[in-house]
């Protein structure tokens, strides 16, 4: 019963991807035609998609930016989440409110001033903005961590403190190891965001320093706005592979969760 449900769901979830894959194998003339199966699959589309979007240059850039952003955001957000979950200070309530409010702000509003900010700092065209964004953390992830830390019992931390460990050490040695599901979720989410985001690179980077996400949206155009959909489909499939790989690695930690550590 469970099997059947999962199997059908998976089939349904895979169908659009299958359609995307079939689209990736179409010849140009078939793109706007109603046939489902390409008459003769054009495997070369994947090669063209790879070269046209300059994967060999753009892929390392995307990996670097998404990796740096994911690592830094996860770290600084976990810190902030821990601070919010465990300590009270004047202003802690305000920080919590601001966190929630920050999530309600549509990103579009910040584009122009953000550019002006980085232009003033001389960081347009560099990768430093991703470092700074990462260090600043992300409100969603901070709240995610806070919720996880709140639900973890405090006994171990308290006994470690009694043993003479400092708070930073407790955080590092006792709390984080129990938080693998949250860490894994955060890593995958933040990596996928930076990986998929194209407004920021479009705003701040040049064609020869930009990310794969931007290259995908512009590289397959015959004419601007008139994209070769078969190549875009092929490129998109290639583009999803690194995030999928990360998920496959992370999913072990998602489920082999805190209780395993606690009872182990």
């Amino acid at each position, binding site marked *: 019963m469970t099997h059947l449900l999962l199997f059908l769901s998976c089939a349904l979830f895979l169908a659009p991807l299958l359609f995307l894959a079939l689209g990736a194998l179409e010849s140009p003339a078939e793109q706007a035609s109603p046939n489902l199966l390409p008459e003769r699959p054009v495997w070369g589309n994947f090669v063209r998609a790879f070269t046209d979007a300059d994967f060999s240059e753009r892929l390392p850039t995307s990996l670097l930016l998404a990796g740096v952003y994911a690592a830094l955001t996860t770290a600084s957000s976990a810190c902030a989440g821990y601070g919010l979950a465990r300590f009270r200070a004047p202003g802690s309530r305000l920080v919590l409110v601001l966190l929630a409010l920050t999530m309600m702000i549509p990103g579009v509003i910040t584009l122009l001033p953000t550019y002006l900010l980085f232009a003033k700092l001389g960081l347009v065209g560099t990768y430093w903005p991703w470092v700074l964004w990462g260090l600043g953390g992300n409100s969603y992830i901070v709240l995610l961590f806070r919720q996880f830390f709140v639900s973890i019992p405090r006994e171990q931390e308290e006994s470690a403190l009694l043993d003479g460990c400092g708070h930073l050490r407790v955080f590092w040695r006792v709390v984080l190891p129990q938080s693998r599901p949250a860490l894994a979720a955060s890593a995958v989410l933040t990596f996928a965001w930076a990986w998929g985001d194209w407004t920021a690179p479009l705003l701040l980077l040049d*064609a020869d320093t930009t990310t794969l996400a931007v290259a995908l949206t512009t590289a397959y*155009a*015959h004419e*601007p706005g*008139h994209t070769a959909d078969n190549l875009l489909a092929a490129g998109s499939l290639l583009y999803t592979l690194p995030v999928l790989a990360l998920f496959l690695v992370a999913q072990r930690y998602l489920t082999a969760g805190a209780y395993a550590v606690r009872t182990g």
Partner: protein
Amino acid sequence: MGLYGGYVPGFSRRAFLGLGAAAVGGGALGGCSGRRERALTVMTWEGEFDEAARAAAERALGLRVTRIDPDLTRLTAMITAGSPPDVVRAAGALDTPFLVARKLALDLDPYLAASSALSADDLEPIGDVWRFDGVKQGAGPRYGLTKDYSQDAMFWCDAEVFAAADVPLPDAAKPLGHEEWLDLARRLTVRRGGRTRIHGLDVSGQGMFVQLMGATAAEGGSVFSADLARVDFSAPEATAVLGWHLAYMDARVGFSPADPNPDGWPFPAFQARRMAMATAGYWFGALLDDDPALARAAHLMPAPLFGGPRVSPCYSGIGMWIPRACPDPDAAWAFFEWYFGGEPARERAVSGFGLPALKSLRSSLPQGEEFQRRAVAVQEAELPYLTVLSFTPYARSAELEDIVTRVLRKAHAEGLSAGKTADALNTDMNAVLARGRDLVG
């Protein structure tokens, strides 16, 4: 309490910048961008200036050249930050008055006069879309150059689709009347169930506003008032044109605001042999190279006639302009000489992707194949009818397109008359134009 505050003198773009600077800690950080070697920044699409072209530009100019994708937010932010790109892509026919009214574009006349690589005499008449004297486009100083262009009201026919419907192909030497055109479209359209198998005609591919603007000129009128500050779709010419387009939508012969083209432009459907007639100017030319069967069947036709003079405008005139705030206009002009007068210009002409903007390159259009000779002959005969239409400086073309699409969709859904549709267009667009005039008038 008054909602509208008073005018604040000196409240300028620079003031915004100043605010930004103050918030980040004063002008102390201002010099940071000078650390790196200055590069010439070109804002255009990769398809028009790819990696190989960029490298070639660096060799030809002896400068570092970078490309960034066109993006309105990025452009606005760069201009606001006081560091605009050196060269920016735009559509001369639609953007020149807007740029001039905002004092953004550099007057290129002195550079052109002093240039040995480019001369004003060698520019095709299409170059005039980049001229604007404040009330008339095509006159006054020149603010940009055209890369390549097309007389966009011309359309392509698929002879095989015509044959399958047993409809004779129109005569390429004689423009069709608009009623006859719509009639043909009806006969060529094939529908089954909810799906359209063959579209008879598409007129929506380049945007409905320019389509209406061009057709109104062909009817002998103009959608804009003489000072370009208002639209008047209630004038008899414009209303007649609106009536035709509402009939086109009702006939469901092709894509329209009520039935948008998922591909964005007609070529994919034309290539899939699902479209009998596609309004697209010369643009299909180079794309036909890869598809011999399609090339044999594709026939370029002159722009159809409406009730007035024979005119055949250009709806975009893609090219580039140089911002007035560009720190090194000489370098930007050197890029212009190379891109518009050098090797890239010749390569574009030879590829047949659009018509060259230089007279000296006209003969370079590809004519090796039968379909190419056929298209060039029709195009040659059409050239004398090229007309530069004036666009308003008080609105972005995209905003007018937004309104026209919304209003036409509603008019179609509710069965509004052409007169009522005209009223709705006038109300919405004149509000936008009044706002623009308030800002830069």
